[in-house]
């Protein structure tokens, strides 16, 4: 790289006049070339991540705010409802458009996707749409409105038509509102969803609560451990750190399996308790919140101990000694002198643990009960079981936003590049 610059310099110097401008240009050109080379080295990975990471995730997330199924499958009625004031029933032309759309969609075999989408909003819409498709006479005599209302009186309700209009896209807040248990009513204002469908606020609250509790337990358990290890001579500290790092390196799944083996009804702990006569019948220690806390703290504790340890190791003991010699009681010396110096470690550890806990899926899925599942479980559920991409995307948007915001805080306070890798 230097040779390029030297050659450029040489060329410039050998030029007709020793013009300083030429020299500067030559240097700039060489710098630019160097930058291009550096960028060219990064380019393959950049393109790879764009294709296999950014675009897939972006496309998936976009399903949470973009809604084009209904405009595609039922184009005429979406167009007809554009000018509907929403106060009275739509005009006869909208009814006729819907009938035409249903017929086309039935022939194309796309009616089912439209029915699925509308059913998310108004339960029962699938039946409504399918029975209309089945029962419509081949030739319409008289008004389209009377024909549809004759099949099902729901076609005479504003809410039915408002649902079609709401799904008309292209942008939608249906899923994002749904992820907060909110929906839009026939007039377009945001209201709470029907109470039997209100699950997501619980899920979001539970995710935050479990993450916070796990973080708290990790600080309480991790702080003294990091302190004791940091006070040991190097050799023994190394051995103790190895004990912290061993679980850190062990497969997450192995650790979760270990807890299943320990906690289950016919597991190691219950058989031990029974044979010691501590209990008369097996304790229920798995598929509940207790198991989730135990297993998650076990997995995440090293992420608390390691940053705390590296901060504590750099704190000279002379400060606390000085405080003591000036008459501070041990607790005061700890609380006023030692603890404040460890705050960066506490911050780093807590953020790291909390951020990771937010996205936990495997551990609660294996050791938790139905009421202990966190937001990731529901993302997987909507993506793979019910294939409701809109809902999976909306929940992903919430989780991703929270995670990235907390990482931004982490980056401001500590710097992502100083993240430890064991």
């Amino acid at each position, binding site marked *: 790289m230097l040779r390029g610059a030297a050659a450029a310099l040489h060329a410039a110097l050998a030029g007709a006049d020793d013009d300083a401008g030429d020299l500067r240009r030559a240097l700039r050109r060489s710098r630019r070339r160097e930058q291009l*080379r550096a*960028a060219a080295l990064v380019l393959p990975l950049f393109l790879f991540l764009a294709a296999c990471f950014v675009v897939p995730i972006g496309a998936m997330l976009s399903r949470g705010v973009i809604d084009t199924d209904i405009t595609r499958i039922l184009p005429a009625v979406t167009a007809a409802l554009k000018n509907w004031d929403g106060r009275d029933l739509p005009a006869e032309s909208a009814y006729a458009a819907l009938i035409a759309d249903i017929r086309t969609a039935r022939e194309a075999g796309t009616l089912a996707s439209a029915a699925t989408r509308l059913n998310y909003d108004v339960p029962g819409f699938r039946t409504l749409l399918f029975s209309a498709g089945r029962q419509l006479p081949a030739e319409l005599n008289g008004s389209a409105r009377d024909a549809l209302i004759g099949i099902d009186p729901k076609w005479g309700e504003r809410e039915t038509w408002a649902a079609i209009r709401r799904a008309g896209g292209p942008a939608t807040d249906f899923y994002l509102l749904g992820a907060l248990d909110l929906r839009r009513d026939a007039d377009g204002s945001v209201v709470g969803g029907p109470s039997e469908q209100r699950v997501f606020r619980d899920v979001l609250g539970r995710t935050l609560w479990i993450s916070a509790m796990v973080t708290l337990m990790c600080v309480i358990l991790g702080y003294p*451990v990091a302190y004791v290890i940091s006070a040991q001579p190097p050799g023994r500290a190394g051995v103790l750190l190895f004990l912290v790092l061993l679980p850190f390196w062990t497969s997450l799944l192995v650790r979760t399996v270990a807890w299943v083996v320990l906690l289950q009804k016919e597991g190691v702990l219950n058989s031990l308790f029974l044979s010691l006569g501590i209990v008369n019948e097996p304790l229920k220690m798995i598929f509940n919140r207790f198991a989730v806390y135990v297993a998650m703290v076990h997995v995440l504790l090293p992420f608390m101990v390691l940053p705390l340890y590296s901060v504590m190791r750099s704190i000279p003991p002379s400060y606390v000694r000085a405080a003591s010699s000036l008459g501070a009681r*041990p607790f005061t010396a700890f609380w006023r002198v030692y603890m404040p110096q460890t705050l960066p470690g506490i911050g780093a550890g807590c953020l790291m643990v909390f951020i990771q806990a937010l996205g936990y899926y495997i551990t609660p899925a294996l050791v938790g009960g139905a009421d202990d599942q966190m937001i990731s479980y529901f993302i997987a559920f909507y993506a793979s079981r019910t294939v409701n991409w809109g809902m999976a995307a909306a929940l992903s948007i919430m989780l991703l936003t929270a995670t990235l915001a907390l990482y931004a805080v982490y980056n401001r306070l500590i710097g992502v590049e100083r993240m430890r890798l064991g």
Partner: protein
Amino acid sequence: MRTGTETVGERVTGIGLAMLTGAVLAFLVAPILIIVPLSFSSGSFFYYPLPGFSLRWYQDFFSSSFWLPSLKNSLIVGTSATILATGLGTLAALGIWRARFPAQALVLALLISPMVVPVIIVAVGVYFAFAPLGLTDGYLGLILAHTTLGVPFVVITVLATLSSFDRTLIRAAESLGASQITTFRRVTLPLILPGVASGAVFAFAASFDEVVVALLMAGPGQRTLPRQMFAGINDNISLTIAAAATMLIAISLLLMIVVGWLQRRSARLRQSG
């Protein structure tokens, strides 16, 4: 730190702290240590004391029609993803270290982001995009997804190694007439190799341990070992799973030792360099 002038209160606190530390360390290590002997049990229940010693669960592992293939799948996916991630990640780290270019901080953030984004979002996103392309039916989709997850580890470790690399060495080589490629092959690469290798180990460990993407993406023919264990816990849990877990623990230990050795070696190279 121990001086002769400890008060009773200090001693009690010290003993209390030591006991608490012991308990927490036992909490961290015990579950992993308890599962190992179980895998050698001759009985078929998760009980202590063991009724006897046998290798029947290992026999079961190696003769079953799904455990051994899952180990093979894990090795295929892990190795391919590691090679891809190490190649791409090392080049990118070299580029970032070589010269500042516009939006470099943003690019670096992108390269690290697979480590930051919750893995369920990566899994669902990749599944969403790859399924219509038919990539979910073979190894390729899983390999590509695991490569993205491994890349940040390579970039971070190689950048860390490069941060202590002496740039004058490159200038010296080039002033002595070495071409760029020769300089890279004979000077840069040998010095950063420990960093590259530990990045590769991290990338392999990330793939070998990964279950969420495998859960969504892998068909029956590409079930990896963690994916098979996940199914094993959910169906009926047998001690074969303890044997599988024990082997995974052994592999983790091995990888941990390799990284430790590489880090010491890299530190030594830095001192002598």
